[in-house]
């Protein structure tokens, strides 16, 4: 009773001492997380405090957070900025393409691979399909520039050989191809890797279900749909939540590399996404506060989308992130 009263009246001194002495008693365990937690505080939380520069006019040399306050000025400028609108459009289009075309393909690949019974080939395909994931976008873009070059690039040679086009296509000189290129290179790079999680989900499906379906005379297509895909639905939904939460991340590395760090001005109209917009403002043009405001906007929208899709998944009684 006394203890309860003490806690209720907020005798924090006593409690703090308690926690502290309990921590001290397990110093050997606490010490293991000290470096990690300090680094998280420094590199994750200090920048979170740093977002106040989005509401200020930060000048070089200012102590962070102690510049002139300007309220929502940068946000107003941003929403009025023509390039912000363009970046928003490109981000959303590229994300939508990746979501509606890029997302289902690894699932399809995993399900088809499951139908393969010749193990050596199955293993080989898997190993090969992971390869591009481990290669940087710098290297990937190097390969793509070569493949898509107008001067003897394999893709143009092939298209001319089968007679689809007469003249080589200038993939990187005309903006209109860029969205397609972004989608295709992304699929090329991540198909196998993104399929792993679905493949491992499939391997945990009980074989009994397939055998029972065999007895009932189910066709393969029916088994694929009613057993395989239905069983991995929670995994699919979980991955989709992540995908929605990342709508505003239109793969910075990829876009930067394919546009030669935005140096290819012919592509800008279709290639400038939020991340490159922020990078350009902040690093190239030195409009630090403006860039910080845009970055904060992006973080908040992403976070809201993640919570939103998580909530919707929960509403429908599906797998949730938290």
């Amino acid at each position, binding site marked *: 009773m006394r203890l309860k009263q003490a806690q209720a009246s907020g005798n924090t001194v006593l409690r703090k001492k308690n*926690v502290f002495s309990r921590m001290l008693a*397990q110093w*050997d*365990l606490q*010490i*293991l*997380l000290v470096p*990690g*937690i300090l*680094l*998280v505080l*420094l*590199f*994750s939380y*200090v*920048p979170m*405090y*740093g*977002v106040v*520069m989005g509401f200020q006019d930060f000048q070089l040399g200012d102590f*962070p957070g102690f510049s002139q306050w300007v309220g929502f000025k940068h946000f107003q400028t941003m929403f009025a900025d023509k390039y912000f609108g363009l970046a928003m459009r490109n981000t959303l289009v590229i994300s939508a393409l990746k979501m509606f075309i890029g997302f289902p393909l690894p699932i399809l690949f995993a399900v088809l691979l499951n*139908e393969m019974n010749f193990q050596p080939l199955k293993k080989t395909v*898997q*190993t*090969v399909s992971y*390869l591009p994931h*481990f*290669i*940087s976008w*710098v*290297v990937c873009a190097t*390969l*793509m520039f*070569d*493949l898509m070059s107008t001067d003897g690039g*394999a893709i143009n040679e092939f298209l001319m050989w089968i007679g689809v086009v007469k003249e080589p296509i200038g993939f990187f000189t005309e903006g209109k191809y860029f969205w397609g290129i972004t989608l295709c290179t992304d699929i*090329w790079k991540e198909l*196998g890797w993104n399929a*792993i999680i679905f493949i*491992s989900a499939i391997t945990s499906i009980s074989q009994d279900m397939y*055998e029972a379906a*065999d007895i009932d005379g189910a*066709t*393969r*297509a029916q088994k694929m749909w009613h057993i395989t895909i239905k069983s991995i639905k929670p*995994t699919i939904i979980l991955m989709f939540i992540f995908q929605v939460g990342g709508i505003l991340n239109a793969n910075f*590395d990829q876009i930067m590399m394919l546009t*030669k*760090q935005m140096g290819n001005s012919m592509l800008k109209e279709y290639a400038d996404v939020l991340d490159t917009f922020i*990078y350009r403002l*902040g*690093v190239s043009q030195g409009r*630090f506060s403006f*860039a910080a405001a845009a*970055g*904060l906007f992006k*973080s908040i929208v*992403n*976070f809201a989308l993640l919570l939103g899709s998580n909530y919707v998944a929960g509403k429908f009684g599906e797998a949730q*992130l938290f």
Partner: protein
Amino acid sequence: MAKNPNKIRAKRVASDYVIDIIMIVTIVLVLVLTLYPFLNALAISLNDSNDTTLGGLTIYPRKFTWRNYELVFTNQKIWMAYFITIARTVIGTVGGVLITGMLAFAISRTNLVGKKVYAMLCLIPMYFGGGLMPTYFLILNLGLKNNFLVYIIPALVNLWNMILMRSYFQSLPEALEESALIDGANYITIFFKIYFPLSTPIIATIALYFGVQHWNDWFQANLYITQDYLKPMQNVLLGIVNEAKFAEQMASAGMGVTIDANMLKGKETNVRSITMATMFVTIIPIIIVYPFLQRYFVKGIMIGSVKG
């Protein structure tokens, strides 16, 4: 898969064969489309550069030569960049696995005082970040500009990797910890002598993640490093690609610029061959390593997907 004699063989219908065909086509397509760009690049890098300009090179070199690689390795810049890349990958991976692993282990213990607070501290940054600008000024204020440590320190803790490791440690039997505590071991010993050696699959996976992240990173150097001798391979390759395209554009405009003065001083070769050779030098270690770690990272992803 071993043939099970008791397995009931369902009668195959037409749609079953259609699925077979779709499956085979998909697999062949994935194999060819994935491998062709690499094999083509390899062929270019191993082919005589004058011969390459004639075009029509596919997946094997027509006039075999090591010349392009010799040229790449006579460049002092490449050696330095390779050294920087290896150094940051080794130090960054060992440090990252250690610091992230220690954090993951501590958070995985049920009797950790302040567990909820620590877990919350780690959860928030996974979904919300301060963004590029605040981070940029933090790094500058820490004096990490043009400092090798900018590659290492900010990347020591990766919270996504931490969650994977935590799930793994949680899955190990608690009796391990209890019996060691009874024998008078402290948690530092328990972690390094008992849990660490028992966690090969997850450590291999996380080491691979850290390693690949360090090996492939170009952005840190792009933002914070202006001195050439501190630049890693990726940035050197980037420089060559950009200069090459610039040189090509100039040449096609009839201005006859001398191609990448540093790289090819007075040597007869073609930008494309050098680019591809440099690219292969950049990716060879990764291509060699990842297949051996495959069984680990597939398992590692499975652990991560079963959310703890």
